[in-house]
């Protein structure tokens, strides 16, 4: 039951995020889903992300840390893990507690494709901070 409730909450968050992203990027909401890459697919730029952070803060009344929600330091963390000899997966899990293990695995396998940030990452961040 708890899982169903969480899924429902995530879907509600997703719907709000879709509206916000569509508004900022002037896109059809239908083009946006959980798996959509924010930068790679939708072409979001840094100014769009700043506006998105402000809108998410207003919509969810949650403090948004831009560096965390947009995985901005991801590659820096990976470099740090490498230079200090730590496990990449464990290190990222510590930095991004809102991401599930499966998502971190996905990210690590997807680094060569470009910016890895997905709409689902935003949903997870909001859901995590609402708890």
């Amino acid at each position, binding site marked *: 039951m708890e899982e169903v409730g969480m899924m429902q909450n995530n879907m509600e968050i997703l719907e709000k995020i879709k509206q916000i992203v569509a508004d900022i990027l002037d896109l059809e909401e239908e083009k946006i889903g959980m798996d959509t890459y924010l930068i790679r697919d939708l072409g979001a730029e840094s100014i769009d992300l*700043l506006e998105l*952070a402000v809108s998410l803060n207003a919509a969810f009344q949650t403090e948004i840390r831009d560096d965390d929600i947009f995985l901005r330091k991801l590659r820096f963390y990976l470099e740090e893990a490498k230079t200090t000899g730590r496990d990449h997966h464990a290190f990222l899990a510590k930095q991004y507690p809102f991401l599930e293990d499966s998502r971190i695995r996905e990210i690590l396998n997807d680094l060569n494709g470009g910016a890895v940030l997905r709409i689902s990452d935003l949903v997870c961040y909001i859901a995590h901070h609402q708890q």
Partner: protein
Amino acid sequence: MKLQFTGRHALVLGGSSDLGLELARLLIQEDLIPLLTFRSKAGETRIHERLAQYEGRYQTAYLDFSRMESIQSLFDKVNRNLDFLVDFIHGNLEGLVGSVDTRDAVAYFAENVSARAEVIKRAGRAMLGGKKGRMIFISSIAAEKPNPGQGFYAASKLASEALYRNMGLELGERGISAVILRPGYIDAGRGKRYLDSREPLPSGPKDRMKVLTVKEMAETILFFLSDQAGGFTTTTITMGGSWKKLE
């Protein structure tokens, strides 16, 4: 010319200064709502005394750049109601670059540059919500032509100018603009103290010297906040006609 304004909420940093108070009076007369910051009880009292006739038409808030928590509480009060920002705040650190204590310099830049960056960041985010906003930073001609002993003051002014300029550059397409004013001598605050401390000038140059009055400066700022000045964006304007005369 009747000035027009897009928005009503103006945050005035350094609101208890002569300039801040004169600007507040003008803003209120234009039916805008200034939120004036003060750093001490005396400053707060001064605001209420000087604006007594406008009770209920302005707000006040505590702000001290050396206390980051005061920035948080200021923006809790601002919430997202912010259309204009005018920044008069600037601490002073006089001394030769080669002699100022490093700890003083570090603290000075922390307050006058780093804390200001935090304020500008939060103001920009508040304005982004409404997709409009105007920021005016009151710099100084000393940023361009400092006297000996003004190295740290000039450096922090220049750094602050750069922060405002980039806000305008980065958020311009979202309706947020910034203008930097570099006044020369103003007959108030630091400028007045400096002028009062000087030996009287020979009659010729003194007669020709232009010292801005508080009223002139406040009216200039009001103009730059107005829609009519919307064409001035991401720019620095020097108002230092008197500079050469004082060298």
